[in-house]
């Protein structure tokens, strides 16, 4: 069986290679790219992201990838957003209110209440709210690594498939059709994280 081609969108911000390296580890032919042609050929697409919402949106648009993301999502191939790559899927973020998001999942990204230390920079247990192929074969409460000061508030609560508890209940994973997104970093979440990425890669296999 050939390795599924996974395009990891490279818009030149921070450490995006970790996601690519971890996807390779779990059996994908994962490539960091901003080449629209390669993204069209890919079996699955990953939108990683670190840093500030506005800076990421600027960089994504500057790299000419906004329309590429929309096309990939509309193609109904598996699409995974990670961390700020998840937040960018929403309409906008209170971190940078002047920047619009990609508008692929209705809702906004808001600050974690300051009754707790921010960023949430720690491992935390997932509370899985709805069965999802992303969690196939994982323990009932997977442990994953979070780094964020903002969290998504989807307009439609039914898109939330997992949460975590950090002072309040925070959105950890959302799913809308072929689009799945994690607030945590699966590529930095050891065994459970690699299993989650492995499940995503498997979903890319079945698109062929």
């Amino acid at each position, binding site marked *: 069986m050939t390795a599924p081609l996974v395009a990891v969108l490279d818009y030149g*911000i*921070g*450490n995006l*290679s*970790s996601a690519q*390296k*971890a996807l390779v*580890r779990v059996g994908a032919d994962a490539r960091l790219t901003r080449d629209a042609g390669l993204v069209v050929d890919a079996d699955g697409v990953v939108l990683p992201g*670190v*840093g*500030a919402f506005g*800076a990421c949106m600027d960089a994504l648009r500057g790299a000419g990838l906004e329309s590429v993301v929309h096309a990939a999502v509309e193609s109904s191939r598996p699409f995974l957003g990670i961390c700020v790559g998840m937040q960018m899927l929403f309409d906008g973020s209170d971190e940078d209110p002047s920047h619009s998001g990609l508008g692929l999942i209705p809702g906004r990204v808001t600050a974690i209440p*300051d009754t*707790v*230390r*921010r*960023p949430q*920079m*720690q*491992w*935390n*247990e997932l509370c899985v709210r709805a069965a999802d192929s992303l969690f196939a074969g994982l323990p009932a409460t997977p*442990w994953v*690594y979070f*780094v*964020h*000061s903002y969290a998504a508030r989807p307009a439609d609560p039914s898109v939330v498939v997992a949460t975590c*508890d*950090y*002072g309040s209940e925070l959105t950890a994973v959302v799913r809308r059709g072929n689009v799945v997104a994690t607030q945590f*970093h699966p*590529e*930095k*979440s*050891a065994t459970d*994280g*690699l299993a989650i990425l492995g499940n995503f890669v498997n979903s890319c296999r079945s698109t062929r």
Partner: protein
Amino acid sequence: MNVARVIPCLDVTNGRVVTGVTFVGLRDAGDPVELAARYDAEGADELVFLDITASSDNRRTTIDMVERVANEVFIPFTVGGGIRTLEDARSMLRAGADKVSVNTSAVQRPELISEIAAEFGVQCCVCAVDAKRRVDGRGWEVFLHGGRTPTGIDAIEWVADAVRRGAGEILLTSMDRDGTREGFDIALTRAVCDAVNVPVIASGGVGTLRHLVEGVTLGGASGVLAASIFHFGEHTVAEAKAAMSGAGVRVRPA
């Protein structure tokens, strides 16, 4: 809910992990990738690599090491030592580090913190602070160059300033306790945790597993960093976590 992190610290020079109380007595302790993989398997939550020589001519070696670690180990890791410019930070993050820690250079030019935070986000920017209790007992003073150079700067004020400028985490080392195995400086840790709302990692002085517990329960730290108790095989990370869990500190199971 807070989940405390256990963070082994690896001193590196020329791409190798070294151990030793002084620079003169350095001993080769192995390959960074192998050690990192071992700590990952034991349940380490993060790793910190400190380039203790960090001369500009071995920068390339350190970047290669970071790349090799990032290819093999899928937990977060920080690289510190000799990050003097935004370009230094950029090269470490591009090579696969999740965070960089700045110390001396940030005290000398605090804008470095804001520059790193602006380009890569506050979550990438760790401010490492080496603090020593003042002789008159009134607070703590920041020291530079691995604890050799006094600055006259109040540690609590500096930490608060660093966070205002964009540091997303504080790596706090007590120079009084470092290497003593007498436990963290709890008063210092508590004072820093009270002064800022970002995570604080306690470092310096760990000799027993009980000390790790106290860093969290008494000091208020979000994570605890230790080197020698792990490197010399006295304790595994899994034992550390079991001790913390047994004392009621929430940790990720090893």
